[in-house]
């Protein structure tokens, strides 16, 4: 009896497995095309990067990356749906297929690129971790922070850099770890902690959300490299290429002086580089599985990298962040894209 039972169980199991064959990962690009929009993971509210206004309309650099990808793929930057995620939730959301691209001021690290099964597609913003304190404390440097209580957002590289920095400098600290960036900013404001630490761009963004931004100051030290960029999951190289080249297209167009206003004019340009990039000559779009006018659509509907930067975090925004490291390589910055050729 027992024996026959065991045999039966094994056969049933085997049959089940054979019938289903090997499990499919499911190509992301096919799924995106089929549903007709990109599901984009963004932050839970960070001015300049991804922030929903009172009408629920998202804007920011991270949002524009997704819009650009939609413009390239569908010819319509509006075909994006957004999923606001906390830092802790973001990787699981991408791994599990809940979102197609994670564009949520995420630092590119080796663990995330390998063990987490992600692929970073490039760097949208070169950032570094800093500290923000209340002016009343009279602290001028991060080196004076021994014994301080520090507010952080859970599940970020900042959480790890913070402990490295304090240990390296032989200082003690008390961490208070919140899930949401808003909560950690509020906690700085109410005095639960002395210091708020995060990427500097985030600190500036959080500061303008505080009731009295002028009472708070960002300390000069930058304690880490934080290259922020969009990521996709492993298993679909075509999709990876599209998101990657969307970003490169934005940087390349800025470099060639193509922007949302003059793109139609530039279509008539004699410059072979411009012709190739805009799809007047050659089949660069088709190679990527995109319409040939993909770059035109990106620039027309979203803008080149410089436009996106200035509009969201630069001089055209309340944040007024300088280009700095994020200027083009030809202007002393780090933004550099491989050529479309």
């Amino acid at each position, binding site marked *: 009896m027992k024996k026959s039972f065991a045999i039966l169980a094994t056969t049933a*199991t085997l049959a*089940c497995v054979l019938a289903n064959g090997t499990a499919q990962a499911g190509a992301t690009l096919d799924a995106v095309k089929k549903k007709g929009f990109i599901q984009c993971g963004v932050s839970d509210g960070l001015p300049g990067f991804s922030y929903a206004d009172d009408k629920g309309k998202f804007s920011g650099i991270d949002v524009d990356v997704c819009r650009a990808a939609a413009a390239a793929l569908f010819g319509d930057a509006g075909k994006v749906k957004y999923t606001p995620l906390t830092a802790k939730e973001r990787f*699981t959301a991408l791994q599990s297929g809940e979102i197609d691209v994670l564009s949520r001021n995420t630092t590119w690290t080796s663990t995330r690129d390998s063990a987490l099964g992600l692929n970073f597609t490039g760097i949208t913003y070169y950032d570094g971790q800093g500290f923000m304190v209340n002016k009343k404390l009279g602290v001028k440097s991060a080196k004076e922070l021994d014994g301080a209580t520090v507010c952080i957002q*859970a599940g970020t590289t900042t959480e790890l850099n913070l402990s490295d920095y304090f240990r390296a400098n032989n200082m003690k600290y008390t*961490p208070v*770890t919140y899930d949401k960036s808003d909560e950690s900013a509020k906690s700085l404001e*109410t005095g639960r902690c002395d210091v708020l630490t995060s990427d500097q761009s985030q600190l500036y963004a959080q500061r303008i959300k505080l009731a009295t931004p002028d009472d708070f100051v960002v300390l000069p030290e930058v304690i880490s490299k934080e290259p922020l960029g969009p990521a996709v999951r*492993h298993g679909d190289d075509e999709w990876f290429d599209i998101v990657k080249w969307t970003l490169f297209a934005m940087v390349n167009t800025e470099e060639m002086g193509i922007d949302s206003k003059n793109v139609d004019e530039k279509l008539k340009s004699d410059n072979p580089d411009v012709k190739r990039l805009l799809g007047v000559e050659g089949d660069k779009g088709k190679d990527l599985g995109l319409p040939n006018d993909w770059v035109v659509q990106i620039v027309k509907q979203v803008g080149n990298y410089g436009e996106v930067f200035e509009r969201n975090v630069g001089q055209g925004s309340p944040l007024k962040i300088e280009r700095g490291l994020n200027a083009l390589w030809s202007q002393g910055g780090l933004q550099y894209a491989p050529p479309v050729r």
Partner: protein
Amino acid sequence: MADQQGGVAKPPFWNDPTIRSVAFQIIALCVVVGIGYYLFHNTQTNLQQRGIASGFGFLQNPAGFGIIQHLIPYNESDTYGRVFVVGLLNTLLVSVLGILLATFLGFVIGVARLSRNWLVAKLAMVYIEIFRNIPLLLQIFFWYFAVLRNVPSPRQSLELGDAVFLNIRGFYLPAPVFQPGFWVVPLTLLVGVIATVVVRRWAHRRQEMTGQPFHAFYAGLGLMLGLPLLAFALAGFPLAWDYPVLQGFNFQGGFVIIPELAALLFALSIYTAAFIAEIVRSGIQAVSHGQTEAAYSLGLKPGQTLRLVIIPQAMRVIIPPLTSQYLNLAKNSSLAAAIAYPDLVSIFAGTVLNQTGQAIEVIAMTMAVYLTVSLSISLLMNWYNRRAALMER
């Protein structure tokens, strides 16, 4: 007749009820095993295809982040495995304290609800109706963001005799520092507890034999408090205190209760106490009034009636639903993640999962912990329930 009975043909085997039931059970089991295997296999293939790490090796890797409250020594270079233990202990701490506080509060309010004093009864009713009907998460936010955020900053701490301080960073108490020779105190306490148990048994026997009551309570108090105190004095007070001192940004030294723990503990116990109060009230009301009258006619005082007649019978009704409330409290403690209390869900199923990306392993471990904690509470309460249940003689 006999011939006819014997002549009934044996039914074909597919109509045999025994074979049928066995066959269906085998098929059902096969399906379950098959689905389980399929899910396991599918997950593993997908993980492999996407290059996501798997296995439990990550528990040996250094965590690299700080934790505000740890009951065992912990620093950033410790492993994820240790983070798991730290989180587990924090969860247990808030659950155990919450259960104790909620039980105490619940019993007091449940009895108060039945008080003949109009004001007391109505106050208890208002308490129950308010706290039972507001979602727990809101109550946690209320305590954390509305109440505990309004205490002063470290420099303007509320203080009591330079030893106890209350500020937005926490409630600072002097911490005991045990000197050599302190071991006699817990030892004598143990002796006192054992002696009390012996005395109580003896008092019980004496009352059964002679009818003479003996106040074992006061004797026990003397044994459990007096003996250790005497030993403490004889050993030359081998205890020093580490006082919290304002140094730089914060108070250093002493013992601190962080506001995250306080808010979570308040919210959990106040919320659960409202349910326990109702359970206690229903339990007491389930004991027929005839029991009270019978006790009075035997000459028992009201306090004795409550303690010796009503409560023991009410406990039979109270314990099973009380167990559910304890389970709820333990599971609700996972709402800690909302206010930065470093419990298991917050730091292990949250931060560690995020750092390692190993969702399946981390979530499985977390689920196993909650299952184990809940089952242990259940087992303990069932054992207590069997003891309190009506003995049929």
